[in-house]
């Protein structure tokens, strides 16, 4: 089953604007993590939110989690050209830390 689907698939914004992307999942989770991937490169961890948390902040990032709706959102405020990347949510559901990734949101920030 697919766990972690991002919406939208692609997002194009201008520098200074906010970018919001959403992630939905199907089963109960231990935590949900957001990652960034620049084209052809590795996955960079952005933020982790536990199932008993509702909101977390890290710099210009704000993540919310609604376990009743099985959804999460990632907000990037005051975006910069360097934020251009694909963003993935990944859920952890089992006892071994396996992550299930969504298909990602491709964000393009134009100067």
């Amino acid at each position: 089953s697919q766990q972690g689907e991002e919406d939208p698939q692609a997002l194009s914004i201008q520098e200074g604007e906010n970018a919001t992307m959403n992630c939905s999942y199907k089963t109960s989770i231990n935590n949900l993590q957001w990652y960034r991937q620049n084209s052809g490169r590795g996955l960079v961890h952005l933020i982790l939110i536990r199932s008993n948390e509702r909101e977390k902040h890290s710099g210009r990032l704000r993540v919310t989690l609604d376990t009743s709706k099985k959804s999460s959102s990632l907000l990037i405020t005051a975006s910069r050209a360097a934020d251009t990347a694909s963003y993935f949510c990944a859920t952890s559901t089992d006892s071994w830390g396996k992550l299930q990734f969504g298909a990602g949101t491709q964000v393009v920030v134009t100067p």
Partner: protein
Amino acid sequence: EPEVTQTPSHQVTQMGQEVILRCVPISNHLYFYWYRQILGQKVEFLVSFYNNEISEKSEIFDDQFSVERPDGSNFTLKIRSTKLEDSAMYFCASSEAIQGMKAFFGQGTRLTVV
């Protein structure tokens, strides 16, 4: 910040050949993972490894795949007889613990099977 390192960054191999992808996890981490990402697709879990044994594996991780931690620092993924469809980016990851701990990913090895 400590990082997971993977070598090589890019490997080209002929179909049917064996390949070994290498990873050096972060030194105090206990849990190790391999994931793959076929071009344009989502990242898929392959296998998790703890206490010198496989803890969980996906359907993708069939008999042609194996993992090993030969010397306490390296963590390898071996593909015995590569197929064209094994072409992908392979990511190694490690974490200090499971619950509530983030996984650190390496930069990946791009495997091209020709």
